[in-house]
């Protein structure tokens, strides 16, 4: 009897539940608990979650070694959420069901592990903030949402986590919401992500429609039905929905309707979702603005974990993506283009966090390039290593900001490279950890970034995506990316890697080398004396520099920037160690690739026949290319680093200045991020705005003006007519009453010989006379002019037989209680057509 069997692995409840509990307690009672309790709660929540994750991962390792290469999943079924109907009419259950496999297990460890370190860092970084409890409530909620995203066993549940992290991201970007720009940045991130979410939703609908399944296992088994060669099984693109344009719009009708494979439709829709979450072209614009949030947030959400969700999703649904080589090509191209574009922007930015943000976008581009080239292990391995070095870089930047904050309180200036420099003397721990992470990201040989980036470059060069359905339908022509694509993307990536090395070294040199430009650093003994003389009660607290000083004159000499406390440096050191060493997890010397081997079962289905070595080449060629790629990888690193060294250390920034003055137009263009935001403003946003303005004008002038005014005019006119009846004179009302009474009396005094005729079948008709007070009836059915009975009687109905095609006239006489008599002739016609049908 096992405590946690693989099919009911309830330890997941602890992994997920602790951060949720932390978020709940800190969110509801945080303010009353006090900062210490909030800190303990937040740290223990993520800490326990991390501990449980380690236990879960260890047992996963154990199970996996027992199963020998099978795809092991630790499953915990919480409850049945809902069910829907698939395209084939089958019931598709949607359960709140979580699973840990090789892929999500690694992700889970990264999220909880790096998450814990960043929580620890934030306890010190955010100390004294008035939203301390709120911050940790959001941060814990983020960890929970991210874990839901990772551990979900089906797409709808993943979507819950996907939206959850989007919400937390929004809340944390706009954490200091008093500043309008921060709130706007949060909103921008949220809206850009919503566009992506739309794609994910569409993909979900298509998957239910075509595979009739939503959980990973079912999708993996049903994925092949996404490639259907019959006309019915395809997705109509133009005309939309398979309609037809006729008449005036006939020119819109193509001669052959444009349809695509469901696999391509699903892949592209998913890709839209991934570009939103993972900040790729065209939806990357939110990530640089997201730096408005506190720095630990940037490190955790906008570098290490949430933004990699897109790559995670591609890896998770690799077996869907490989079915469409076109989608794979799109992913690779988007990745390469994003990597290059973001890298060029990062070269000229002056804000530490902006440089790191664009660096993140660029690295995410590399990951997309990796997965897009069909090498999911390589892409995911870069996710893994990137989490460490980018978190370390951001936290290092936070440490620098923390140090600058002692005297500079302007949020923009504390992170402006032009005010920094020479910090390695005063911030030794921050310096060497930052250096380690920088070496990793620029691909210094044998660091983690070196291995993961080489892997991507290598796979990109040698891999070629083909449809795995090629062997099943040999006569059908499947789309195939051009042969030269791999080479083009390889060189793009090499240039991007070179730029990465340049801008990261620029960032490092400008921050930690050269002269400090923030303020004049005076001698401590002298400063203490001055302060005592000036105002003893307002003395500097040299312990930590968090105290705020009003209107500090920066030209005055002050204390040197100080190193951060241990809560901030310890996470930095741990992350730095991983940044350097994590690459060895996949390269323990020789051909052993433990990480690739570990992930192999996850990508087994996707691998089969989908990714081949580029045509016309052999296995031996591919192996020979490895040294070629390594050469250029190291060369890119060396060129970038050397250029940065020459520019910013040897020549002290003079070449950079002369370059920017030589090409002012280009410099401004890149500094303004290629004005992509402005382009979006001018095209998409302006379009939406004009639609909104048109709608507002229609609302104002047509709905409010014409329709509402016309209606009110009618009401007002009839009101003013009816108002004249309201004379206010009691006698007029009395007279009106009398008139009414007389009318009613007249109505009751006269008999009303009304009757209805009903068809009773068989040529029979029943005539029913309307009832009334004291009414008596006399019928004349035979049409001789005289009543059938001489006396008035109580018979209200008369049965009558009328032959087809004949018409009979019946006379009805009614006498009321007052003795008044009235009569009416009723014609009963039997048309011939009504009987012929039966």
């Amino acid at each position: 009897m096992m405590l946690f069997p693989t099919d009911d692995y309830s330890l997941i409840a602890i992994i997920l539940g602790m951060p949720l509990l932390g978020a709940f307690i800190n969110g509801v009672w945080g303010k009353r608990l006090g900062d210490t309790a909030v800190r303990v709660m937040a740290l223990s929540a993520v800490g326990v979650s991390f501990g449980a994750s380690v236990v879960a991962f260890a047992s996963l390792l154990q199970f996996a070694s027992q199963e020998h290469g099978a795809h092991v999943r630790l499953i915990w079924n919480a409850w049945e959420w809902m069910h829907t109907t698939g395209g084939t009419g089958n019931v598709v259950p949607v359960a709140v069901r979580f699973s840990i496999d090789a892929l999500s297990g690694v992700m889970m460890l990264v999220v909880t592990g790096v998450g814990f370190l960043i929580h620890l860092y934030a306890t010190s970084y955010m100390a004294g903030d008035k939203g301390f409890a709120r911050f940790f409530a959001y941060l814990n909620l983020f960890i929970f949402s991210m874990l839901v995203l990772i551990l979900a066993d089906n797409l709808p549940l993943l979507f819950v986590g996907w939206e959850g992290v989007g919400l937390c991201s929004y809340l944390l970007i706009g954490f200091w919401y008093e500043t309008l720009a921060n709130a706007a940045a949060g909103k921008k991130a949220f809206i850009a992500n919503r566009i992506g979410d739309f794609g994910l939703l569409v993909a979900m609908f298509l998957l239910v429609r075509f595979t009739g399944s939503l959980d990973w296992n079912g999708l993996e088994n049903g994925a092949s039905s996404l490639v259907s060669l019959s006309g019915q099984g395809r997705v109509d693109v133009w005309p939309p929905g398979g309609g037809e344009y006729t008449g005036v719009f006939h020119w819109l009708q193509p001669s052959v309707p444009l349809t695509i494979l469901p696999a391509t439709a699903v892949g592209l829709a998913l890709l839209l979702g991934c570009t939103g979450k993972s900040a790729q072209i065209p939806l990357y614009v939110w990530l640089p603005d997201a730096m408005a949030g506190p720095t630990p947030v940037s490190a955790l959400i906008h570098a290490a974990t949430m933004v990699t969700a897109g790559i995670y999703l591609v890896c998770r649904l690799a077996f869907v993506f490989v079915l469409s080589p076109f989608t794979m090509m799109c992913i690779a191209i988007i990745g390469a283009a994003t990597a290059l574009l973001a890298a060029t922007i990062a070269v000229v930015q002056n804000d530490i966090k902006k440089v790191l943000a664009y660096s993140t976008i660029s690295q995410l581009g590399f990951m997309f390039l990796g997965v897009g080239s069909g090498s999911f292990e390589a892409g995911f391995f870069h996710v893994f290593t990137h989490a460490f070095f980018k978190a370390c870089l951001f936290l290092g930047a936070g440490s620098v900001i923390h140090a600058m904050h002692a005297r500079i309180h302007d949020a923009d200036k504390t992170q402006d490279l032009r005010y920094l420099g020479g910090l390695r003397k005063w911030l030794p721990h921050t310096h060497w950890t930052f250096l380690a992470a920088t070496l990793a990201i620029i691909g210094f040989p044998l660091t983690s970034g070196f291995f993961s980036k080489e892997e991507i470059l290598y796979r990109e060069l040698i891999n070629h995506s083909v449809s795995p359905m090629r062997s099943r339908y040999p006569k059908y022509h499947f789309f195939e990316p051009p042969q030269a694509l791999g080479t083009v993307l390889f060189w793009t990536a090499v240039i991007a890697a070179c730029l990465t090395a340049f801008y990261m070294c620029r960032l490092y040199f400008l921050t930690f080398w050269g002269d400090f430009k923030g303020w004049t650093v005076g001698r401590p003994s002298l400063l203490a004396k001055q302060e005592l003389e000036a105002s003893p009660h307002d003395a500097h607290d040299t312990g930590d520099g968090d105290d705020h000083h009003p209107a500090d004159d920066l030209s005055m000499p002050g204390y040197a920037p100080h190193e951060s406390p241990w809560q901030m440096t310890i996470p930095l050191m741990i992350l730095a160690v991983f940044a350097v060493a994590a690459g060895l997890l996949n390269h323990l010397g020789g051909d052993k690739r433990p990480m690739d081997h570990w992930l192999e079962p996850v990508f087994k289905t996707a691998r089969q026949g989908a990714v081949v070595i580029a045509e016309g080449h052999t296995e031996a060629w591919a192996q020979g290319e490895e040294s070629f790629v390594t050469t250029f990888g190291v060369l890119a690193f060396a060129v970038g680093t050397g250029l940065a060294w020459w520019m910013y250390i040897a020549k002290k920034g003079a070449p950079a200045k002369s370059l920017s003055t030589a090409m002012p137009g280009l410099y401004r263009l890149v500094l303004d991020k290629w004005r992509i935001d402005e382009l979006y403003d001018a095209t998409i946003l302006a379009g939406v705005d004009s639609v909104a303005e048109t709608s507002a004008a229609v609302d104002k002038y047509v709905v409010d003006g014409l329709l509402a005014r016309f209606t009110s005019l009618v009401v007002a006119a009839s009101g003013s007519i009816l108002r004249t009846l309201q004379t206010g004179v009691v006698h007029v009302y009395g007279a009106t009453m009398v008139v009414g009474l007389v009318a009613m009396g007249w109505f009751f005094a006269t008999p009303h010989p009304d009757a209805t005729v009903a068809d009773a079948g068989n040529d029979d008709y029943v005539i029913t006379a309307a009832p009334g007070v004291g009414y008596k009836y006399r019928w004349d059915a035979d049409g001789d002019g005289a009543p059938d009975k001489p006396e008035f009687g109580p018979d209200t109905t008369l049965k009558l037989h009328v032959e087809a095609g004949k018409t009979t006239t019946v006379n009805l006489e009614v006498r009321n209680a007052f003795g008044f008599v009235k009569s009416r002739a009723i014609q009963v016609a039997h048309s011939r057509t009504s009987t012929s049908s039966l």
Partner: protein
Amino acid sequence: MIPVGHYIILSSVIFVLGGLGFLVRRNVLVALMSIDVMLNAVNLALVAFNRAHLRAGRLQAYPGQSHTGQIFAFFVIAVEAAEVAVGLAIVLSLFRLTRTVRSDEAHLLRN
């Protein structure tokens, strides 16, 4: 024995007189009295019909005999009393407000 038709004619005459008085006279008090006259005309009709009904019933002595008409007349008298009380109160407040009991000068609710 006076036939019931005579009562009905008398009752109708009184009712029409009351109605005319209500419509024609401008004094609110008189209008109120006219309403009472109309109600009494109705009472007379009720009582007379009930009486005629009883007379017809006495010949056969069937158990359905009732005095509903007479009892109903009492109800009408009670309602009349209440109506007079409320009406006079209205007239009083109208007089306090406008210093007149002429109904055509009480037209605050006009239009």
